[in-house]
């Protein structure tokens, strides 16, 4: 039973139904039902033409639902006989589906859920498990999202930037379930890159590949966070790095820089360094300058302060930090790091403890708490030696 194949075929099958005249919401429901039937039927009777099978079954599900609807409402529905002619080959159904599911009228969580179901071919249950909410809640979120985009015309091109933000969210929020969302985000971004020639799509794909390459090295026993500088670089996936760098170089060669290409360039420079000490921080600072210019993002400025601290010394990093709002997430953590490098263990310990209280995740909190504890222990040791 090839579940991956089912998921790959999902958007195209929805596209066929929509071109035949089904509205998106009904088409999506029908295809979801066809997928569930495929999961039951294919292990016993594998079809010779999986896509054809899905189209046939989904179309029948759609007609059944429409007829039931018609009977109930006693109303004429135009879909019954031959499929009407579609808008032609110029429209890429799969691409349109990406745009629709990331439509700007949707909230981020709705766009993520709809994308994973209609483009990713995941079931509502899988999405609910991945985001740790009840299945009924996720079902409501998806049907509400479908109502929101019900009047969006399927033929109008959408905005690539909104699609990229949705895929970035899927990748970056490392929730877990029986579906690997990071892998899924990469798959969907790859698929998108195959349907549209756009430098930032390539930039995001490169960014994901370069970060995914470090996955095995990023956590230790019990999900313990291992910071970049301490990671065992022999555990980085060189195949993913090579692919990420290649995708990035092709994107950069087009000379239309965007935020994802800039972030990927930073990740590529980290990937380039055989040891943390060999990192080219000067170039990384230059890329952060680009990123700040492109996005004005306070998070980029905060990360830039870390890079400045590495390139020009802790004092320079602290000076860059001083220009930023202390209310920023991770501000205290960055301040703690720079204070330790500036030979201020007591200040760093206090800031690490503050950062731990403000942490947004358990592994981060535990990591920051250990940093504070490590520094406090050395301070206590030093005091004991001084007293001797």
């Amino acid at each position: 039973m090839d579940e991956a194949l089912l998921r790959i075929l999902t958007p195209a099958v929805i596209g066929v139904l929509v071109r035949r005249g089904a509205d998106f919401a009904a088409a999506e429901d029908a295809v979801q039902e066809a997928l569930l039937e495929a999961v039951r039927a294919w292990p016993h009777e594998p079809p010779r033409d999986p896509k054809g099978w899905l189209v046939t079954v989904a179309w029948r599900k759609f007609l059944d639902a429409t007829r039931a609807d018609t009977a109930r409402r006693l109303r004429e529905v135009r879909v019954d006989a031959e499929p009407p002619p579609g808008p032609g080959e110029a429209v890429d159904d799969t691409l349109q589906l990406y745009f629709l599911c990331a439509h700007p009228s949707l909230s981020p969580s709705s766009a993520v859920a709809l994308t994973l179901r209609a483009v990713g071919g995941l079931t509502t249950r899988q999405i609910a498990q991945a985001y740790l909410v009840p299945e009924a809640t996720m079902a409501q979120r998806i049907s509400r999202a479908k109502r929101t985009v019900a009047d969006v015309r399927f033929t109008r091109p959408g905005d690539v930037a909104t699609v990229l933000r949705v895929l970035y969210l899927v990748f970056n929020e490392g929730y877990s379930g029986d579906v690997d969302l990071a892998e899924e985000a990469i798959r969907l971004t790859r698929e998108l890159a195959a349907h549209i020639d756009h430098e930032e799509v390539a930039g995001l794909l490169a960014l994901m590949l370069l970060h995914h390459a470090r996955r095995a090295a990023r956590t230790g026993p019990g999900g313990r966070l291992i910071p970049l500088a301490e990671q065992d670089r022999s555990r980085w996936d060189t195949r993913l790095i090579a692919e990420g760098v290649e995708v990035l170089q092709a994107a950069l060669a087009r000379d239309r820089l965007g935020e994802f290409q800039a972030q990927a360039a930073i990740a590529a420079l980290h990937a380039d360094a055989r040891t943390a000490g060999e990192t080219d921080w000067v170039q990384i600072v230059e890329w952060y300058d680009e990123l700040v210019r492109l996005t004005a993002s306070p998070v980029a400025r905060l990360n830039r302060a870390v890079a400045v601290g590495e390139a020009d010394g802790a004092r320079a990093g602290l000076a860059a930090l001083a220009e930023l709002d202390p209310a920023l997430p991770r501000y205290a953590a960055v301040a703690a790091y720079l204070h330790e490098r500036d030979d201020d263990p007591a200040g760093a310990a206090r800031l690490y403890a503050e950062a731990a209280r403000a942490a947004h995740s358990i592994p981060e909190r535990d990591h920051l708490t250990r940093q504070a504890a490590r520094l406090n222990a050395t301070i206590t040791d030093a005091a004991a030696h001084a007293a001797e």
Partner: protein
Amino acid sequence: MAKYLLLKHYRGAPAPVNDVPMDKWSPEEVTAHIQYMQDFAARLETTGEYVDGQALSPEGTFVRYDGEGRPPVTDGPFAETKDLIAGWMIIDVDTYERAVDLAGELSAAPGADGKPIHEWIEVRPFLAYPDTITE
């Protein structure tokens, strides 16, 4: 996308504006209050933001480990305990602002004389999974 705990307190929160204990309400007012809470949860289910909701008995026991091979020690309830949780609702929303808005709505549940209680609801973010891209 973040989860928040909306906490209702028996004790420990500042006094609400409409501060009349429930047993001094009319039966209709009690019914109206419960209906409001149920409608609120049902509405959150339809918006795809509801995760869980539970109520707790005010009675509780403190338990602690008492060493190898010994049964745990139980004690309480302690009259002096300042904070007493009445129940909670867990929501999954796009923004902190949305969580605050919903807590405000929950606080408007009707009490004595059918007027909003203006009860203080505590909003606590869940610790989530760490972001993958941090540099």
